[in-house]
């Protein structure tokens, strides 16, 4: 079940990095990220709970995490 309002894209370099994956999982207040088999997973049913806090964006290298607002075509970081 994909998000209706929000989608999150994570670069392969981050998704495959166990340490960064764990960090994203920790910072997200609404559990959009999870780690399985050392890889980052997106928890689709939680996507719409995103509060646009940008903590994930700040936790990963610049340009590797993108939060898309499906209702306006905008994304974060702006």
């Amino acid at each position, binding site marked *: 079940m994909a998000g*209706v*309002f929000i989608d999150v894209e994570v670069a392969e370099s981050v998704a495959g990095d166990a340490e960064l994956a764990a960090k994203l999982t920790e910072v997200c207040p*609404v559990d959009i990220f999870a780690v399985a088999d050392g890889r980052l997973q997106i928890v689709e049913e939680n996507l*719409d*709970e995103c*509060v*646009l806090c940008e903590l994930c964006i700040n936790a990963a290298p610049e340009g590797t995490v993108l939060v898309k*607002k499906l*209702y*306006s075509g905008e994304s974060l970081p702006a």
Partner: protein
Amino acid sequence: MRFFEFEAREVIKRAGIPVTEYGFTTDPAEARTIAERIGGPTVIKSQVLTGGRMKAGGVKFADTPEEAESHARDILALEIGGHMPRGVLVDPKAEVEQEYYAGVVWDGTRKQPVMIFSPVGGIDIEQVAEEQPEAVGRRHFSNILPFSEFQAKEVIASTGVTGSALNKLVPILTRLARLFVENDMVLAEINPLGRLADGSFVALDAHMDIENEARGRNAKLLKDLGVGDEETRQAREATEFELAGEAVDGMSHRGVAGNVTEFDGNLGLVIGAGGGSLTLFDAVRAHGGKPANYCEIGGNPDVAKTAGLAKLVLQKPGVDKIAVMMSIVSNTRVDIVARGVIKACLDLGFDPAEKIAIFRIPGAWEEEGFKILEHYGVEYADRSVSLNEAARRAVEKIQGVAA
């Protein structure tokens, strides 16, 4: 939360206040056994949380155990004011010489508990206060300093009661005042408190109401009385719709989407917060609208919880549209509520623009929320549109549907 009479009597009995040798049962045959044990005329009293049980036929006198059984059978099947009885109380018919009143309540103005005592009991104390004000004594007492017996003595003496009656009443009122404080009661009342032929006193009926917020710290008492955690004992019993609303609120600990109350109209309300909901409900009715429900959103619930509430309201039989309205929010987020109500529409296969009559929630994250609403073509309003005007627009839309 109110106590049944049989529970209230147990509470005062534990506090050391004399009660009659009553028995409680849900079984007519056992009512007979209790009457046999009592061995004289009895009173069979319906155990319901509503007034007017005497008038409704919920209190009957029996001369024999057989009669007690037959009355118990009738009363157990008798609905009073929409409530079925929890059971019956079989009480010895006491030979009372005089009926007194003793009670303790909160005074929200003085912010202290107040004892009320009267030698005129058996009827509503407010009626006595109106007709014979000199027969009603009142005295506030500290909620920090330990309660002292002289305080009870003063209030009783102020009504003209003296002699051995005074000395016997002081410990009763003292115990009542102490149990009120110790058990977080909001009402503790013995009415009537009967004086028997031998001069002794006995509680013949009792009303108690414990503060909901203090149920946790009175868990032992409630467990001893057999009161279940799920029992809310509202003035009206919860409907299935209302129970489903509680389940939605319990979905997560984030925020509140609760106090769902069922009404029989066609306009579903997804409204908040406390004061805003009251204002909006009045406004919808003032414009001739018929609300399908009342509710309160607050404390920034998550999208899933908001969607759960909106779905519940949208699926209620007879609901044509929902109005999503709140007073200006500072903690709850406009965009999160917008996502929740739109998601509810989409999940149920409805067009949000069609189903949401109006969305009027200004405040935190409103710019983001309005983008979402615009995308789905939902009519929305900012703070320049009053709560009253938003309610009017919602009613106008739904009446357009009905016509």
